[in-house]
């Protein structure tokens, strides 16, 4: 089956891509660039990096901009999926949804309207287990956004490893923060993963912080030999 992966460049959609590629034929990636930093549906920091990631993966990328207005952004997603169907003859869509019925429901509906299969290979996975899996599989992932107390700029740009996972799990116990950030508390950017032919090297970045939220903005990056 030819499938497209809804790809934000974060750890969940990259792991979903890996799982999809083990079972079906991934033929393209779809990224939605939201102008709304608080989009309900779409991850925003460093979304431009998906271009480099797609190149590293050797997969074509369909990018679509949206104003990020709630519900209207779904129409933009639908147009992008339609484009993937026409251009790459996809039969299904794969997402990195873990727990959000809000996200899953809306993508299921779009796929149904377009006569496409919909798969969520990380659905209901334990958040801690997901972090352990990406470490074990050799992903290199940095935290590129924090959006909830008590997370602060300490976390921004940090690479997810066993030590950091332990700290995130402790925060879950104390503050109810989802350790993998499924509740939108944390956003991540993948710099390297098993299907990447090259890794991403960050050349310049800026940290922006405001209250209990902050982003690690990658200003300049390039592909480098693994």
């Amino acid at each position: 089956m030819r499938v497209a992966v809804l790809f934000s460049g974060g750890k969940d959609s990259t792991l979903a891509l890996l799982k999809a590629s083990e079972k079906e034929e991934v033929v393209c990636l779809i990224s939605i660039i939201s102008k709304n930093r608080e989009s309900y549906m779409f991850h925003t920091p460093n979304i431009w990096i998906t271009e480099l990631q797609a190149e590293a993966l050797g997969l074509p990328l369909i990018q679509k901009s949206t104003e990020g207005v709630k519900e209207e952004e779904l129409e933009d997603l639908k147009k992008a999926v339609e484009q993937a169907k026409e251009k790459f003859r996809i039969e299904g869509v794969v997402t990195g949804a873990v727990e959000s019925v809000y996200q899953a429901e809306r993508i299921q509906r779009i796929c149904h309207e377009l006569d496409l299969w919909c798969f969520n290979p990380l659905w209901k996975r334990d958040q801690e287990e997901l972090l352990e899996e990406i470490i074990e599989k050799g992903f290199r992932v940095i935290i590129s956004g924090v959006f909830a107390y008590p997370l602060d700029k300490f976390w921004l740009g940090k690479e997810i490893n066993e030590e950091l996972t332990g700290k995130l799990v402790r925060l879950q116990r104390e503050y109810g923060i989802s350790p993998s950030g499924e509740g939108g508390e944390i956003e991540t950017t993948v710099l390297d993963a098993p299907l990447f032919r090259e890794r991403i090297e960050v050349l310049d970045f800026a940290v922006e912080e405001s209250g209990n939220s902050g982003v690690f903005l990658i200003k300049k990056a390039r592909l480098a030999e693994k």
Partner: protein
Amino acid sequence: MMSIIDMNYKKDSLGFYEFVLPIITIIKNIQEYEVKHYSEVGQTDTGNCTGIVLSGTALRDKETLKHVEEFAWIKECEKPILGICAGMQTIGLVFDSTLTECLEIGMKQITTIKENPLFSSSFRAYELHTCSIRPSTDFDTLAQSEKCIQAMRHKEKDIYGVLFHPEVRNEEIIKRFVLLSRSKQE
């Protein structure tokens, strides 16, 4: 031992993670389990288990409904069975029920209309289906949504079907079924 039957379009499919793994996650802490794809289950294969759960499938996956003859073993099986979504639809067809069109996606309100050991009153549950079942006279209807029948039970056997996906937001229903299956064996 619970037997979990993978109802996805093929063995070892991309649907396994979404429709079978969450059921395993719920069951593994309370009971030993085995997983088989539906194409591997024969008449004699259900002997060692205490109960059987038939998983759901992706919205477009109608494979089991095209191969109902492969589920003839359900009619003879004396073990408790819980069919989820495609699992319920398949059980219904095995007992000559009628498939009806009913599209529901997302969280919906479910109303219990007949007392049963798995759930009660009114609750919200995750839906992902294009069809429901109009049960044959072998079944009692246990619950409904605004649009269609949501749960049924065989009148003489411990065979249950739920159209919604309890593994998403109603895990206790699966746990109760595991305990009910265990109690039937004792």
